[in-house]
């Protein structure tokens, strides 16, 4: 019989020091494009297939809610990329964080509304040892009746529209909706079609947007901390 408990203990703590410490391990985030001012921006916004980059009189602005990390603007002749991951922002109709009594602990229900597997893979890792969601008092719950936060990924397919609405309706107040990934924000590469609604806010109210394709685990956790009122929001728009 393998002594798993001892083996596990011997391995020690493998969890990131973030948010108390800065996390800069290479590869924890794919990074994101940054804005550039006119003086030093030879980059061509036409390389961006999703119109996340926009040329203005002052330079190149970035709408990170549209970026799918295709990396075509990265590298030589492109725009500078930043290796951050605290990306979550309030939606325009956001109800703000949950009331103060939820600061120390929230329960989260995850819902797949057509995700490609990338968001799902990252969401599965938020309570893995490397990130250890539980240290924040955040738990994944099996039923919407116990959930304070609904975490949704995917562009909302026609067939998931009803399950999404019913799940939300089953949650008690107060409740918040965190959407992860560009697909869930605006449909992403799938857009609006006969098969896709093109964003969660067409079906239920959305409070917090976590952009990325997919957002890395730390960005998802940042979104959940925002819902609990324990983090500062980032901005999806970057002006030069």
């Amino acid at each position, binding site marked *: 019989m393998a002594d798993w408990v001892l083996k596990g203990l011997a391995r020690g703590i493998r969890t990131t020091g973030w948010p108390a410490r800065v996390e800069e391990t290479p590869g924890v985030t794919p990074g994101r494009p940054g804005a550039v001012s006119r003086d030093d921006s030879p980059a061509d916004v036409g390389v961006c297939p999703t119109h996340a980059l926009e040329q203005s009189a002052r330079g190149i602005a970035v709408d990170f809610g549209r970026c*799918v990390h295709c990396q*075509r603007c990265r590298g030589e002749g492109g725009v500078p990329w930043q290796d951050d991951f605290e990306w979550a922002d309030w939606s325009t109709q956001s109800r703000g964080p949950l009331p103060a009594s939820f600061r120390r602990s929230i329960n989260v229900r995850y819902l797949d509304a057509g995700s490609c*597997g990338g968001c799902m*893979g990252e969401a599965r890792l938020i309570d893995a040892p490397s990130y250890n969601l539980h240290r924040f008092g955040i738990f994944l719950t099996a039923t919407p009746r116990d959930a304070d936060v609904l975490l949704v990924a995917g562009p909302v397919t*026609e067939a998931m529209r009803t*399950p999404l609405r019913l799940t939300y309706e089953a949650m008690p107040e107060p409740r918040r909706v965190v959407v992860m990934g560009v697909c869930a924000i605006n449909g992403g*590469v799938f857009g609006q079609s006969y098969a896709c609604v093109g964003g969660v806010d067409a079906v239920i109210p959305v409070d917090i947007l976590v952009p990325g394709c997919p957002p890395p685990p730390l960005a998802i956790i940042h979104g959940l901390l925002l819902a609990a009122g324990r983090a500062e929001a980032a901005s999806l728009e970057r002006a030069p």
Partner: protein
Amino acid sequence: MTLKDFISRIAGPEVRVLQSEAGIRLESTPAAVPALAARLVEEKGCEFATLVVEHQGDDFELHYFFHGGEGNATHVVQLTTRVAVGDQVPAISDRVHAADWDEREAEDLFEIHFAGHPFLGDFVLHDTEWREGVAPLRHDFDPRQQRPNGGRGGTWVPRRVLDEPGSLVFPVGPVWGGDSEAGLWLLETPGEEIRQAHTRLFYKHRGVEKIAEGQYPESALLLAERFSGNSAFGHGLAFCQALESISGTAVPPRALLVRTALAELERLRYHAAVIAEIAGSTALAVAKAWGQELEEELLRLSGEVCGHRYLFGVVAPGGLARDLDAGGLARLRSVTAAVTERLDRFEHLLERSSSFLDRLEEMGTITPELARSYGVVGPVGRASGSSMDLRTRLPYAAYPDFTPRPALETEGDGYARLRVYFHEAREAAILVAALLDNLPEGPVRAACEPLAGAGLGWVEAPAGSAFHWLRVDEKGVIRRWRAGTPGFRNWHAFHRAVEGAAFQDFPIILASFGLSVAENDR
């Protein structure tokens, strides 16, 4: 008699041989298709690959793809037939069961009636959401048109098979208690044993093949990478290979080797995640944590070396979007080299955990006969006595020179599948090292000019064989794209592994299949 000899003898009034070199192309009347398909599979041991349907003018053109042959002389066989819209096509799936879901999908999305198919309707487009008669893949259907009054979602009542006192239907999904993908499994039981299981998928159908129509390949490549994110590199590669086969592009050698190395890195990461899920499904928390730790390390490695944790935006038509720097390649070499020993130790510990093995052995068995009948692919197939691996059967990229040692188990149970995942993960790590040690200098991208035509690209994705077929017009715009995926093939057989198992074994069997729903639903 070799496959080529066989092909040369079947020509007749109903079957024409259009091409017999560099792939075999046949054309036949619809009536002759079932018998011909059955002979290819039963007599010549060919595997059914995928069914591609095109709507052209007032006709449907159906391309049935197979692959087979002996030893080094393996070929892709394309069998084409044409029918007018509204006419019936005889189904091949009563003889070639692997084509069952392909025909159901074509019926649902094109409204082609397959005569003799016992189970059509309510497949991709759920009847509770869509009325019958909607055919989104026909060329006159506007994909951007959203459905009015969507989301009212009528109640779907499944057919029940089991008729026993106290029997019930237990639904699992589409919203799960855990973090599984959206899909519905109906488990019929008189109490403890699952007697009947019904898989209902396509909750995640995003219509990617349709919305790619009219796009340029560089836009559609975003879809090819993103319809199944955890096999993004494999599908992107197959998509690019289809384009390259149309334009006759020769990919530079350095790009071929780097592509192969990254495809193996993806396989290694995918298998690590599956192993973690299997351990987790048996509540072996420490082993799950180890698997996840390995997965996370490989994701970070991918992010560090390629800029993206899931390898998006790396492959491009004609080669790679950009070369990897020397430091990144050295990191890739050193991290993967260290993985083999860890996998050995990990597997050894799991093998000594009797409580873990008890949950896997003789659990969720797919016998070799079943695997053959359903055309099961990938690690699940290789755990059930199938030697089918496109890397050795129809070698592409650098696989002609860098051959993985095949995994082959015959028990077909959960434990056999676990051994295959470990074996293939180790082989992937060994291959990455061998590829990087032999990496030539040179460019990583050749021009891939658009040419009108159609072509097939294939890869052995982490979950099994994937076939991407493309038709591109003279402007280089995509007119039809079909992605035949391993998920689509293997979910078809999944219910056979569940039937007869006890309730608590369902999540374990699910984990041991290691499949993606997104890959199936597209």
